[in-house]
């Protein structure tokens, strides 16, 4: 199922992000089993899978949050998390880097369930996101507000009082304020109505077109995102069972039944 043309393309230049043979154990349970994933500059990579497929773990591993969870679990005597594998970002090995160091390199995670700061206003939320790129914060702010004009009306409102859709826009906006080179979106459509899903998806496409950054997006239901991705992976129980370009995935009968509801 590997896309041959895509593989050939990759050999010419090394990809922006390349994760090789990621293995993550939560105690003795394997959460990611030999997952390799690549993301190019200006490319949207979709990662699809049902619950417990390992999507969030993959995002935590790429963004480094897993190391933080691991440390906290160790301190309180909980589960032991073991992480193996290599993550290369622009050719540099980053697998042992802390999450904040990875964020400085430009790998920004927009976490699942949004995790906005509920007691700060929308504007403050965005400015917190801009902490790493204070010089460009004016342009970035304009950019985000252009991307999601709805946020403009609520700049002074507390983040926690926004609707779910607006909170998602805010979360993506906050991630964008940090000037990402690689944007990790963990289930950005979670709990959104079709109307808001469309706004968010349009936003993601626009980001790709204007910023030319790499975007990795995870989702359970592939249909709304499929049109905009360049390359997709399908995770099942921690292993990557299929990967291919949009067309290849859409032609696969298993994928059709499992992720499109056809």
């Amino acid at each position, binding site marked *: 199922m590997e896309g041959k043309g895509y593989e050939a393309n990759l050999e010419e230049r090394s990809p922006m992000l390349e994760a090789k043979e990621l*293995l993550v*154990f939560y105690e003795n349970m394997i959460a990611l089993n030999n997952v390799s994933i690549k993301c190019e500059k200006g490319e949207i990579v979709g990662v699809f899978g049902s619950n417990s497929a390992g999507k969030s773990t993959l995002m935590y591993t790429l963004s480094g949050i897993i190391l933080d969870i691991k440390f906290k679990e160790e*301190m*309180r*005597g909980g589960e*032991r998390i073991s992480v*193996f594998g290599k993550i290369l970002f622009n050719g540099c090995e980053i697998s042992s880097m802390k999450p904040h160091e990875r964020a400085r390199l430009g790998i920004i995670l927009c976490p699942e369930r949004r995790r906005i700061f509920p007691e700060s206003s929308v504007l403050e939320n965005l400015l917190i996101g801009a902490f790493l790129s204070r010089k460009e914060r004016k342009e970035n702010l304009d950019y985000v507000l252009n991307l999601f004009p709805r946020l403009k009306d609520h700049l002074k409102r507390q983040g926690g009082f926004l609707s779910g859709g607006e909170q998602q826009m805010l979360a993506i906006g906050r991630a964008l304020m940090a000037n990402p080179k690689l944007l990790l979106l963990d289930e950005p459509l979670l709990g959104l109505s079709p109307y808001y899903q469309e706004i968010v998806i349009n936003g993601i496409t626009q980001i790709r077109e204007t910023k030319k950054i790499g975007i990795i997006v995870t989702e359970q239901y592939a249909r709304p995102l499929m049109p905009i991705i360049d390359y997709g992976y399908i995770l099942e129980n921690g292993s990557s069972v299929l990967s291919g370009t949009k067309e290849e995935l859409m032609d696969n009968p298993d994928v059709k039944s499992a992720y499109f509801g056809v």
Partner: protein
Amino acid sequence: MEQLRKERVDRSLKVRTEGLYAISSIEEILYLIGPRLLFVAGILLLPLIFEAAPYWKRVVNVMCAYALVAISFDFLSNFVGLVCLGGALFTGVGGYFTAIYNRYFSFPIYLSIPLATLSGALFCTLVLLPALPLRGVYFAIITLMYPLLFSRIIEALNVLGGTNGITGIESFPDPYIEHYAIILPMLFFLFATRRFVNEDIGLVFRGVKDNDQAVRASGINVTLIKVYAVFIASLMGCFSGAYIAHMYMWAGLSLFALDFSVIPIASTVIGGGGTLIGPVIGSFILVPLSEILRAAGTLRIVIYCVVLTLFIILKSEGLMIYLQRKYHQFERWVKV
């Protein structure tokens, strides 16, 4: 390249003892009750072991009194989610109540301690009531302030003996009664709370800690649940305070001292929160340690702090959680 991962596996003995079949062999029965038996027997024998050192026999009593306050802290913070910074409130209230009953109403000791425990717990629950519907730091702050408040009231109004305290409280008739008057209730409360948190209402308590909105949505009055929990915790604290008052034959402002708030918390950290036995072990380490350090004079607190900090850095999970893991599981390297 070969990668190795350390794997934790349950001991076969543990797996075998999980079902009813546990009673099929002596080995398995021992595996289950051995540690408990050892712990209970060890504590019961403590006064006899220290027969040769009369000073340390007193320390055993103090140890158990602190352990009881520590259990109440662990119960409140790790099972109900209420961080109580005021163990001193419970001990102080219990101590003064028993002093009032014993001195002013001339109740005998076997009446004044239970009465003080019950009425003291009721009193503590009442004064803490305003903070219970709220979530967040309010409960912690109010429990921290009350001991100060009460000791200042007693000092300023010169009631209940003022700064001198209430003296001449009846002492225990016999040193062995004195020992077992704290050891037995301590063991009782320890195993009772351990059982209690696994009963139905205990599950609700833990639910309140994790997500009180979900508990409310299940049709349960969260404030009432918290009232029960605070009452149970203050029972333990007040008993401990009443006991100390009778042991020293004196109820003074030092019953409201910060020690009774801080040492139980530190014991819980060292012993491992959420195990209930951990705090007991923690106070069995900390109280003797602080007695030994008396020789160091002012440096006592410094050494004490260093020990605590080291514990938090090196074994922040707590002794008990570490021991439990080692007892039930073993580790081995496996290829990834």
